[in-house]
Each structure stands twice: as structure tokens, then as C-alpha cells.
């Protein structure tokens, strides 16, 4: 009887502990988000630190060098890229409330009404919707970091997290692993290694792929004289990190902007063509070089993961969906294989 009560108490305590952890995670989700972004960046930068270590630097010195270079890049970005982007956002907001764009949207509405007869009057009202969308979009661009905590705090905390995770991450993982009971120690170590193999290449590849696609898009849009080319290019690069959906979103946005700003069919076709060429370059040249195709998952599973990720954590969730799904996949496969091997051996 006593044993049953003891057991019941233990289970109750365990459930209470679990609930407490859950409550903490929800309450601290904004801070956890900052740490996830920091950990992600540190994880992406890790091979560079390892390479510098291989060249003879200590881990601390390697981290220092990476941070100096990043600070320089950030400084140049703030100096040359951020002011035009802010200007472009302001111009978008101004233009959308101006008469010309209202006219353009009215034209589109008329075009839709004429060609799609069963569309009701009330279904449209594009002007309001576009305005809502743009306000939401520009808010979410700055709000992506800003809404989490204040932008300044985030900008201080993220580099701080990245620095220490990059410098001490390995020993932190080692210390974490050291508290695992002997029985599960080897299995855990092996699992961590397999997960790293699967998602490391993928995440780093996606990051550099996004960077390259972003730069290519900015150049193409600038060349085609598309307004807000910096903003759309940067968005296209970022969106490219979301599988399947991302590339289409970037291209659609660019075409939409041309449609709203002047509606020139030629320019729209050129922009679409430019994105098609960029995707071609991405698929034929960039991806095979930088993205390790280590995450072997069915496209349906990828799409499903992206949608679920988006539901839970928004844009960040969509970026992280595939690696998280990959972690779950490796975990399930490894644990299954382990049990199969153990059962076969005895």
C-alpha cells in the first residue's frame, strides 16, 4: 500500500514539475526565443571557429576574430543598408495611402470583377486589405526582433549569447552530457552526434544559401529598377530559408510590388523571369555546393513541418521546422535501431 502511495506521489511530483517547466517556458518564451536565435547563430558559426582553431588560434581568440569581422560587417550594414531600407519602408507606407496606388488597386479590383463574375462586391475591398497587410508587414519586419523584448536589449543579448555559446558551447555540452546516467550516456552521445550530422550541414547551408539568394535578388531587382529592391531582395533571401513556400513568396512579392507601383506587364515578366533564373542558379549551382542534403525527408513531411512550425512560432518556427523535424526523425530512427540491435543480440 505504502509503495503504491509512494509511487503515486512520485508521479504527481513529476507531473507537477513538468507543468512548472511548461509554465516557465510559456512565461519566458520571449527570452527563450532570443536564446534560440543566439544558439542558432553560434551553431552556424561553429565550423568557422573550428577552422580558426585548426589554423592555430585558441577557441577564445577564434571567437574574438569572428566577432571582430561580424562587428565590421554589421557596422557597414548599418551604415549603408539600413537607412535605405527604412526609407523604402516609409515610401511604401506613404505610397499606399496616396492616390496613385489607390487608383492602381481600384483598377485591379475592376479587372477582377470583370473577369471573375461570381466574385461578390463585398469579397473585395483590396485597398483596406493591402493597407492592413503593409502595416502588418512593416510592423512585423521591425517587430520580428522588436516585439520580443526591446530592440536594444535584443541587440545586446543576442551577441552576448552567441559569443559565449561559440566560445564555451562545447564544454557546456560536455558538462550537460556528464550528468546523464552511465546507462544512457553512450546512446545520448551517439544521438547528439547523429543529430549534429543531419542538421548541421542543413542549417549552415540554408543560411549561406539565403545570403547568396538575397544578394542575387537585390542585384537583379536593382538592375530591373524595381522599387524597394533592397527590401524585397532581403525578404526573398530570408524567405528562401523556408522550403518550397519561400522562393514563391519572394517572387510573388516582387511581382506584386511592380503591379501596384506601375502595373507594367513587361517589368512584371522580367521580374518573374529574374526570379526563375535565380531559382535555377540556386538549384543547379548554389544548393549542391552549400546545402548538404543531409536532411532526407519526404516533401509532404517538410510542408507539414513548415505549416506546424508557422502555427507555433511564426516566421522563426517556419525556419526551424525542418531541422526540428530532422531531430525528431533521427531520434526515433536511432532509438528504434538501438532496440532492434539489442533485441537481436539477445
Amino acid at each position, binding site marked *: 500500500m505504502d509503495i503504491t502511495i509512494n509511487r503515486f506521489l512520485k508521479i504527481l511530483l513529476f507531473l507537477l514539475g513538468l507543468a512548472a517547466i511548461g509554465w516557465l517556458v510559456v512565461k519566458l518564451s520571449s527570452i527563450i526565443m532570443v536564446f534560440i536565435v543566439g544558439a542558432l547563430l553560434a551553431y552556424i558559426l561553429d565550423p568557422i571557429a573550428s577552422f580558426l582553431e585548426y589554423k592555430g588560434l585558441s577557441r577564445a581568440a577564434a571567437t574574438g576574430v569572428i566577432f571582430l569581422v561580424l562587428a565590421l560587417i554589421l557596422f557597414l550594414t548599418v551604415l549603408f543598408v539600413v537607412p535605405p531600407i527604412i526609407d523604402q519602408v516609409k515610401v511604401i507606407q506613404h505610397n499606399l495611402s496616396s492616390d496613385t496606388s489607390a487608383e492602381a488597386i481600384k483598377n485591379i479590383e475592376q479587372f477582377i470583377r470583370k473577369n471573375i463574375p461570381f466574385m461578390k462586391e463585398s469579397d473585395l475591398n483590396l485597398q483596406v486589405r493591402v493597407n492592413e497587410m503593409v502595416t502588418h508587414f512593416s510592423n512585423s519586419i521591425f517587430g520580428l526582433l522588436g516585439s520580443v523584448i526591446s530592440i536594444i536589449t535584443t541587440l545586446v543579448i543576442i551577441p552576448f549569447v552567441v559569443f559565449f555559446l561559440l566560445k564555451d558551447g562545447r564544454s557546456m555540452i560536455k558538462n550537460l*552530457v*556528464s550528468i546523464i546516467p*552511465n546507462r544512457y550516456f553512450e546512446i545520448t552521445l551517439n544521438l547528439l552526434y547523429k543529430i549534429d550530422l543531419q542538421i548541421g550541414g542543413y542549417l549552415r547551408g540554408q543560411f549561406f544559401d539565403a545570403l547568396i539568394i538575397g544578394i542575387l535578388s537585390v542585384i537583379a531587382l536593382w538592375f530591373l529598377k524595381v522599387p524597394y529592391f533592397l527590401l524585397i531582395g532581403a525578404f526573398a533571401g530570408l524567405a528562401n530559408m523556408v522550403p518550397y513556400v519561400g522562393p514563391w513568396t519572394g517572387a510573388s512579392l516582387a511581382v506584386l510590388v511592380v503591379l501596384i507601383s506601375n502595373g507594367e506587364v513587361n517589368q512584371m515578366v522580367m521580374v518573374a523571369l529574374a526570379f526563375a533564373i535565380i531559382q535555377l542558379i540556386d538549384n543547379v549551382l548554389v544548393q549542391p555546393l552549400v546545402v548538404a542534403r543531409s536532411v532526407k525527408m519526404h516533401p509532404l513531411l517538410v510542408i507539414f513541418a513548415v505549416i506546424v512550425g508557422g502555427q507555433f512560432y511564426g516566421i522563426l518556427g517556419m525556419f526551424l521546422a525542418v531541422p526540428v523535424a530532422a531531430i525528431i526523425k533521427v531520434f526515433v530512427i536511432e532509438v528504434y535501431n538501438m532496440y532492434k*540491435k539489442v533485441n537481436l543480440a*539477445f
Partner: protein
Amino acid sequence: MFEDSVWANIFRKKEGEKVDILTVLKHIPLFQDLSKKELRQLERILHQRTYKQGEVVFNEGEPGVGMYIIEDGEVQITIGKDRRVLAVLSKGDFFGEMALLLEAPRTASAIASKASILYGFFQPDLFSILETYPRTGNKILLRLSQMIAERLRRSNIENRELREKLQALEAKGK
């Protein structure tokens, strides 16, 4: 006691007690070519584990991913359900190094017969050291291949001798 050439530490050196882990590592044949600096790089990667008396380090048949070095204590290598002892290893000895190269089920069990402190060196650690410090990694890899080649050579000799004995017995029987 019967000691077979795979599990017994045939590279064991008869030397006095050593104190710090670097000295223990230096006496492990796998790491004997490493300089002090390289040993320190290695030490940062190794996992220190503590085992109670009678605690299982690994079981026969379980997938293995690496080797263990005994810093202190005693470990029995056993085989079969009746736990037949193949070898008794003590301070400075090591076992399970084959799993560094081959991700296969363990061919024997290891049980701490006294309270022990072991250092684990695993396949992911070897890969990581090969990537970050390739010179150190290559030295370890070369020694590992030499040791396994040496074990194979000994096993071959044992095998040949046993076969000759068997043939001689068969000839006698006829």
C-alpha cells in the same frame, strides 16, 4: 587466467603508480605519440565517468561508439550470460577501442569490479579531433590502426597454432 589477444591489454607497461590524467593518457599506446599540448587538447574532449562497484559499463550486444581508459579502479571484461571473465583490467588499461572505428555491437560486456573512474573517448570525439586538430587526430588514428593490425597478427598466429594442434589431435585420433 585465460586472456585473449583482443581484450587483454597486450600493450600494458609495467610501471609505477601515476597521478594525473595526462600521465595516464601518455601511457595509453593510442596516445603515446602525442605531445603534452596535444594531450591537453585530447583531455578537454574526453568524458570522465564514475562507476560504482558492480556497475555495467556496457553490455555485450549493445551498439558501441567508443573506448574507455581506466584512470582508477578495476574493470572485468566478460562474455556470455554466465559472465565468463575474459580479462581483468586496471589503472592505465583501456578497452573497447575497436568501436572507435566500427559501429558494431559490443562483443563482450564490461563491468566495474571495483569503484572506478573511467575516461570515455568516442567516435564523435575522434571525428571532432580529426577536424579541429588533424595532426593530433592522425597520430591517434595511425596508432589505432597499428594496434588493430598487431592484434590481428597475434590472432592469426593463435589461430594457426590452434589449427596445427587440432590437426595433430586429429592425426593422433586416426
